[in-house]
């Protein structure tokens, strides 16, 4: 095998959303860029086995649920006929369209893509194990965008019936009794899909609430909704043993809501978080500090402790979100290209694409309380929203958190259908420094769910007319 060698001004390791954003931005700013990706298709976890395919399946789940719900209001369909192969084909078509688009975008920008696993050899050299042999890439600057992997649990047997989020997207067995291990966003999104497709769902979560980190009043709405649909939700409980038997996976629980005896499942989805891939790069050969968890520390220009090496995305820390990785990637490329830019976002929104959706941004009420802030709430229940009534989805609520000192918006949380589409406005409002009045005086279209944001501000201001709240301060 010949050892090929390539010189790069900038090498980007990993072609997920952060990595390709970094590579493309650097190329657009005049750099000669090499993009290293270990898998055949670009786009990383997000496009191939994460955000994008899961959203396609969640859409299918929503259609199924909506059709079922309509029977209560006079429109009855027959039971859905589900052609898994066709559904998977549609999902894969979306992935292929997007990843193929990335390949084309890379070509247009003259970004050279090298497929294979990259490891540092020295502070200025990377060795890539490709299908055609090792390729040595010398570089002036590097951007590490190597992402994260699903966290593993040591006591879980290696069995095809145990899945992580990647395996779950293959929909191998949807008419099953499934245990979702981990009540976080990924686990609950998968539960949403599998439930709609016919699975019987149990969820086990070690913490005292689902999606720890979200305010209790918000998560309560989702919890109530899925509790009525799933078989069992076990909070404050953990799995201590999993035994692979011929007839199923026998799971032993421990904790306050643990079943009295082990339970047999057809499938287990392990969704207990993600581990950064910092330890898989031989980073020490380049002198890069990687902590014991696998994170690489960076400053507010994405610089690692090594002058010319940058890192972005999941590998630099929480929150592990594509929409955090992308601006970080572009920022690293800009700093490399000599721009004096800094990561300076005031807030990064989070969304759980469950049914109903959750979305939050800025400070949570729990954090505000813990920090002892003098804050005020503006809460609008969707039961009073004409639009939510018309969608037969009135369980939602919109909650805004304001600083009492200057009425500035400092946080927002929304639960309800389409919450993820609504939260962007709140992120903009926080970035722009809007106060309650600014939001309340912005005319929102009627009837919409987005109105609930304006109405929540009016609740805080005491100017609301769509509700009667006698105890509120009057302006």
């Amino acid at each position, binding site marked *: 095998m010949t050892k090929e060698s390539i010189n790069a001004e900038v090498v980007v390791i990993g072609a997920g959303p952060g990595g390709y954003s970094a590579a493309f931005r650097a190329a657009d700013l005049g750099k000669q860029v090499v993009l290293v990706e270990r898998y055949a298709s670009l786009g990383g976890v997000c496009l191939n086995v994460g955000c994008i395919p899961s959203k396609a399946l969640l859409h299918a789940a929503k259609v199924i649920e909506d059709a079922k719900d309509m029977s209560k209001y006079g429109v009855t369909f027959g039971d859905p006929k589900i052609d898994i192969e066709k559904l998977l084909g549609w999902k894969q078509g979306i992935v292929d369209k997007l990843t193929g688009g990335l390949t084309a975008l890379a070509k247009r920008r003259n970004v050279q893509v090298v497929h294979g696993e990259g490891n540092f050899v020295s502070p200025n050299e990377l060795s890539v194990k490709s299908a055609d042999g090792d390729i040595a890439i010398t570089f002036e600057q590097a951007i590490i965008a190597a992402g994260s992997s699903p966290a593993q649990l040591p006591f879980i047997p290696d069995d095809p019936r145990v899945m992580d989020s990647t395996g779950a997207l293959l929909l191998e067995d949807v008419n099953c009794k499934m245990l979702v291990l981990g009540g976080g966003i990924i686990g609950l999104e998968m539960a949403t899909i599998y439930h709609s497709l016919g699975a019987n769902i149990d969820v086990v979560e070690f913490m005292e609430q689902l999606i720890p980190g979200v305010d209790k009043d918000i998560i309560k709405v989702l919890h109530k909704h899925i509790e009525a649909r799933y078989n069992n939700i076990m909070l404050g409980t953990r799995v201590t043993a999993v035994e692979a038997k011929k007839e199923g996976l026998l799971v032993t629980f421990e904790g306050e809501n643990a079943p009295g005896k082990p339970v047999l499942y057809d499938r287990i989805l392990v969704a207990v978080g993600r581990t950064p891939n910092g330890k898989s790069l031989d980073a020490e050969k380049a002198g890069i500090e990687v902590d014991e968890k696998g994170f690489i*520390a960076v400053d507010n220009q994405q*610089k*690692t402790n090594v*002058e010319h090496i940058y890192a972005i995305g999941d590998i630099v820390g929480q929150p592990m979100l594509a929409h955090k990785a992308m601006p970080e990637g572009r920022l690293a490329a800009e700093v490399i290209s000599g721009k*004096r*830019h800094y990561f*300076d976002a*005031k807030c990064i929104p989070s969304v759980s694409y469950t049914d109903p959706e959750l979305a939050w941004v800025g400070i949570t009420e729990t954090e505000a309380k813990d920090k002892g802030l003098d804050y005020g709430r503006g809460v609008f229940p969707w039961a009073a929203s004409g639009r939510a009534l018309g969608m037969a989805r009135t369980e939602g609520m919109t909650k805004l958190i304001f600083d009492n000192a200057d009425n500035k918006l400092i946080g927002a949380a929304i639960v309800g259908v389409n919450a993820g589409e609504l939260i962007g406005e709140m992120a903009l409002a926080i970035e722009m*420094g809007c106060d309650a009045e600014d939001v309340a005086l912005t005319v929102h279209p009627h009837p919409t769910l987005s109105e609930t944001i304006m109405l929540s501000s009016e609740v805080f201001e005491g100017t609301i007319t769509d509700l009667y709240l006698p105890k509120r301060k009057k302006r």
Partner: protein
Amino acid sequence: MEVIEILVKPGDTVQQEDSIVTLEGDKATMEVPTTVGGVVKEIKIKVGDLVAEGSVILTLEVEGEAKAPTNEASKEEAKPQKPSKANGRSTEASVEVAAPSGDVYASPGVRRLAHELGVDLRNVGGTGPKNRIIKQDVFAYVKKRLSGGGDGLQIGPARKVDFTKFGEVETVPLSKINKATAVNVHRSWVTIPHVTQFDEADTTDMEAFRQKNKKKATDSGYKLTPLVFIMKAVVGALKEVPRFNSSLDANGDNLIYKKYFHLGIAVDTPDGLVVPVVKDVDKKDIYELAKELGEISGKARDKKLTPADMAGSCFTISSLGGIGGTAFTPIVNAPDVGILGVSRSKVTPVYQGDKVVPRLMLPLSLSYDHRVIDGAAAARFIVDLSARLGDVKGLTK
């Protein structure tokens, strides 16, 4: 701050408050102590590195801990922090070092612009709706800063001259002190309207007293110089004309009167001019002052002055009497509003009534900020000062 000396090496055991590194900044060098004790594992910096608050200096193995956190240094100069961010990149030439924009009322685009231009948005007034900082505010601020706060002097760039065309030359870099002095005196020169007032004080009696008593000081290991008498006289004059003991506030709307009497003393060192400050001169007698002056001058020459040693002056004295000259026009050491230049005293024939007598006359040059002090006040100050210098009993009470 530049690292000029590393005082420990891996394997050394250090106690809390032990000095671990010497840093040199504008006009001062300082030793930075560690905030925790332990065994030095790894030194993260080298001589010549630029460091700032937050820089990781070294890692310590702290007793009783299996794995030591990255650690290191003083309250001000280097905090323990995991990602080492210094790497010599901490200082950048710009209008000012851009701070994280934090909680300013400005949109993301404006915050990015501020970073690019090196503007700290906390200093920028907003003119947008509800006083939001908008892009125009940032541009206006930079324009103002670049023009020195006013409409600008419209001075062209200095001419480049190739001196080697004319003969042999040697290029020597300016010391940090030289550079800092240049910045400060230039700022004072262009922003303060200077006037200099001259006088001569009769120091015959003062000198007689000094000659008679100087042994008392020498025996204790310090020198009784004319400067300590001048310091006492200046404090008296500052009390008489309090406007000399004031400063303009930053926006020029208020005058701040000081109720303390700290005097800056210009000291010549091989590296350049430094101005240590002698605190509470009004509360010390000439012998105490002589002793302190000896110590502080020694510290200045040994480059041991800390920023605290050089902060807080009310009024500055620059004495060139030991070298010579008849008079000069010193530049006010802002935010002081006055500075006294002292030249070499000389025995001069002076009329006392009809008689000509030899008197030891000391030339004084008083520069002042004409925005704060008018000519009459300055004349009163220097006349009062001269009178006090002529009355040694008053100075040594």
